[in-house]
């Protein structure tokens, strides 16, 4: 199970978001990630560890390499909750528009 706090902490760092953006284009090894980010290999490895613990990336073993790719599940889980909230609120506020229209009409009548 992915912890939401862990996920958001992982996403709070700009380098880690950039790594996710790079992985959105496809799988990459640590060495392939070191180059564009001008960071040391241990620094990149540390970022990957945080992303992996947050369930945002998945690493597989290929010989001596451990290529990384995006894990869709971690992100989808938060999206599910936000989508639910958005739908419930959008429905509520559409109803509220109608209530407010009635309130304004009544007020208008009272004035005249």
């Amino acid at each position, binding site marked *: *199970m*992915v*912890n*939401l*706090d862990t996920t*958001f*902490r992982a*996403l*709070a760092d700009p380098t880690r*978001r*950039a790594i*996710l*953006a*790079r992985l*959105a*284009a496809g799988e990459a090894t640590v060495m392939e990630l070191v180059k564009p980010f001008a960071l040391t290999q241990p620094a990149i490895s540390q970022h990957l560890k945080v992303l992996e613990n947050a369930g945002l990336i998945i690493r597989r073993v290929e010989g001596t390499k451990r290529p990384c790719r995006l894990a869709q599940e971690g*992100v989808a*889980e*938060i*999206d*599910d*909750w*936000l*989508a*639910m*909230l*958005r*739908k*419930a*609120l*959008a*429905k*509520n*506020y559409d*109803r*509220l*528009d*109608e*209530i*407010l*229209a009635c*309130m*304004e009409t009544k*007020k208008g009548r009272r004035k005249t």
Partner: protein
Amino acid sequence: MSKMTLKTEGDRYVVVTRKFLASPEAVYRAHTEPQLIQKWMLGPDGWTMPVCINEAKPGGKIRFEWSDGKGNGFYLTGEYVELKPYNKIAHIERMHLPDPTPDNHIETRFDSDGSGTLMTMRMTLPDEKTRAAMLATGMEHGMEASYVRLEGLIEAEAAKNASA
């Protein structure tokens, strides 16, 4: 037409904005008068709010009970912290599903916007356990594949496009 925005702020909050074609006074009243709240704060179609206790004063109690008319229901309790008519409401609430979820601190502002009102609501982002409990109730009923993306991922996407 999408007048509502919903986004995460940092790793702890969700901020919702919505414009209304009514005065801040009317929108504020619709958020604080029980007989008005019962008409719109219902979530998905088919749900009603048979019980609505709402004491709009500092320390005042809140209790909303929802029912889907088929034996399913849940309720929310809370307390008012601060009210500034017709501009700001600060309150704390928790869902009972039936176990109480952690306290959600919510601040709602109503600002004049032309001839209407801009509402801004800032709430605590629930933890994973709370989210799962909320998804497990009837609240996800009829959920469509609307796509809400994390701010961070939108930024990541923008960075990708910029570097491409």
